[in-house]
């Protein structure tokens, strides 16, 4: 499958996704420059993590105005699979492809560590290889992952099974202590109604190889391969 990895000025996990997709999963991967006006035949689009536009103003706010985002929105509307990881998730929120917004982490600090997660909701293009309740660990690395939306939106996301990843403790409970950033209802990842657009704060591309101590992230990429 051909993966297009969008490179915004300030993206810095673009090479990592490329490595995971190409060298670990053996798929075709190419970078798509943010000024580009087509997706170069991509069958899967990934918005990688990093600090697009330095995270200035608000995370993801400036990136969503990049020329390539029109194409990404059109691709998503056609049902094409789009995964936003970390800053990519923030961009999807700003672009309106997913509901809600991000606030500063509750502790106000950048947090980089591996956290406990559990799969939830219904199957999406990026979580079909996970079953609700599956637990695993993935790294997070962000200062603004404190997901927020109004109560009605949160209820709707949950009701429609669109909360796909939650922070939890080792027993699988979604608790305040297990929540690294204050995110509403322990939300770590959500999907759109059709399940083709997914945003998540954890970095699956950092956990695809045993040498890195964890390969749980592979299942996210394998899901989209079908």
């Amino acid at each position, binding site marked *: 499958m051909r993966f297009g990895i969008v490179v915004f*000025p*300030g993206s810095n996990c673009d090479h990592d996704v490329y490595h995971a997709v190409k060298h670990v999963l053996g798929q075709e991967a190419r970078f798509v420059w943010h000024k580009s006006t087509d997706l170069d035949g991509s069958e899967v689009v990934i918005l990688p993590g990093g600090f697009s536009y330095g995270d200035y103003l608000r995370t993801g706010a400036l990136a969503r105005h990049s020329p390539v985002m029109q194409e990404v929105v059109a691709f998503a509307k056609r049902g094409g699979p789009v995964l936003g990881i970390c800053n990519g998730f923030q961009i999807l929120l700003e672009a309106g492809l997913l509901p809600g917004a991000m606030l500063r982490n509750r502790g106000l*600090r950048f947090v980089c560590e591996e956290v406990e997660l559990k799969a939830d909701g219904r199957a999406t293009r990026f979580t079909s290889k996970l079953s609700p309740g599956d637990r695993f660990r993935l790294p997070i690395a962000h200062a603004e992952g404190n997901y927020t939306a109004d109560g009605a939106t949160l209820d709707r996301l949950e009701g429609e099974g669109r909360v796909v990843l939650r922070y939890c403790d080792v027993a699988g409970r979604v608790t305040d202590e297990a929540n690294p950033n204050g995110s509403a209802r322990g939300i770590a990842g959500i999907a759109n109604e059709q399940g083709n657009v997914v945003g998540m704060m954890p970095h699956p591309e950092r956990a695809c190889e045993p040498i890195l101590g964890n390969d749980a992230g592979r299942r996210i990429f394998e899901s989209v391969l079908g």
Partner: protein
Amino acid sequence: MTVPPVLEGAALVERARKAGLTEDELRRIERMLGRTPNTLEIGLFGAMWSEHCSYKSSRHLLKRLPTSGPRVVVGPGENAGIVDIGDGLGVAFKMESHNHPSYLEPYQGAATGVGGILRDVFTMGARPIALMDALRFGRPEHPKTRKLLNGVVAGIAGYGNAIGVPVVGGDVAFDATYDGNILVNVLALGIVETDRIFLGRAEGVGNPILYVGARTGRDGIRGATMASASFGEGSEELRPTVQVGDPFYEKLLLEACLELFKKDAIVGIQDMGAAGLISSSSEMASRSGAGVRLHIDQVPRREEGMTPEECMLSESQERMLLVAARGREREVVELFEKWDLAAAVIGEVTNTGRLDVYEGDTLVATLPARALTDDAPKYDRPQRKPSDLESRWIDIDAPALSDPGQAILAMLARPTIASKRWVYRQFDHMVRVGTVVLPGRGDAAVVRILGTPKAVGIAVGSSARFCALDPKLGSRLTMMACARNLACVGAEPLAVTDCLNFGDPSIPEVSWQLAESIDGIADACRALGIPVVSGNVSLYNDTEGASIQPTPMIGMVGLLDDAERTCDVAFKRAGDRILLLGRLTGELGGSELLASQGRLEGRPPMLDGALELSVQRAVRDMIRAGRLASAHDCSEGGLAVALAESCLAGNVGATVAIESRLAPSALLFSEEPSRVIVSCAPGQLDAVRAIAASHQAPVVDLGAVGGIALEIAGVARLDPDAMREAYEHALPRIAGDE
């Protein structure tokens, strides 16, 4: 446009003094030029002859360091050193201090320190893959410590995280000696193809000189001079000299430069760091022996009304000076414009050996380039051994411990020993998917080199208490501790970078410390068979007459041929055997145990060079042969702390019984060198012993992994929650998070 005035008499001397030049130095300049320099020229000399830029008090001492070796591709003198690691690749690395700016404005000071050292590495053509930070703060209870700690860590995170280079490890300690002079030393390491290295040279008469990157403002004017002055009353007034960094801009600059390096469009490049344009242009000119003509009015600016002097001395961040091949300048400018960066031709290479600065058609400064650089004065400062030193070398009687278990917990809670998770959790240490041994897990960081089976190990540190008691021995111990840390992750030391953080060199005791320390580093380099390839000297770390204890910070880089054959400190499985490689002599001089009693006393422990190398070789071979489950060096806090850390990292207990006639305090807390605690599956025991024997490394049986508590037979039993409580909460408390 007019030529800057030439002053006379007292006004001249005063002007020179303000620029940081002594009257002797002014006279020396007059002799070199055969005339009196104009005011602009005085400013240029002042910056270039500052301690920070000229190394005038340390240069002759640095000559004692071994700098060559079969793997050295680029040694000291360039922006970073480069060492060959095979496969056509090299590692470029350097460590640099940003102590003074970080004290005045911790966030921006530390952030721009990261930006500056990254530029030093990527200017060589290398892609940065790792950062390490070595920090020294004052006492936790000092009123400034909390703010400085928070600001410095946030600044490193703010810059490093945004630019996407992982901070893979570091070293943090607290001591009253740094109350008024914190240390912020950052090491950057990159990978370069050895046939595509770029140097800071201005070559080829007529080649255009380009300015690229951010526009120039009045940031940090006289930063180099400030870094060469002592702190005292009123130094807070130096504030406007603080530079502000923009990691986003630097990320663009990095990517643009790496793209540029793939073409053959440039002949030399150098970042604009301390003393900005004057330093980069005169260094590029004097390295190649060419000359440079600059048109100062062509420099992209962000502020109006800047004088030529301000333009030449500005330390605005995220800027590079480069020499393009003639006719290729258009291409270079277009490439930078693609990345939305400013680029402009501001001069050309000449064959005059001079630095000529024009404003419009007016020649406002004309100086021999070498007068600014190589011909800066060199001072062989008087040295004197501190008179109180030997009186501190008393024999230490092992203190009695009323409750050894409590003593271990107290040691785990010492800020210098306690977990640094609060720090590295704020740094993205995983970006670039290279970090094989994460911070907090290993004695050294291990970063794999994608596209090869190899990895580099990086260790930083400084045993400042040992150096305070005996700078030469302390520096040797520091070097060996770094090498041992590398051995504990399976790496073979390749080369060293250093930051020599010392006080005011005009004080003979400080000069003595510097000289001794350099000798100690040189000795250890020879013993290890490795060179120093880059580094930095930071003097005048003193406040109101009190200099810091000597703190030679060492950054040592090692190679692993197989990234999979590495090791961390965590005990793994119940039943694994625990062994100590090395001896137990119980020396306590200069230990953290004594420091916890407010005592800086004793002789640092003896270093037996042969034993040290045996232990390092043995542990490295064991890891390479895949025999070990864990390896952990015994350093601050001794055996007890090392055992507790291996338990905590592995989330498992251990039962240890040590036959020894030493008093418990000596057994538990001695910081003697040349010791490593290893664990292995029982089935590997014979092989492990055989490897130790083949290197004549002594082995002491300690016990086995298992249970949840750390039990030291007849001494203490420590429950994991108590250990974790002591170990994990010290830093968050200092920072004010708890």
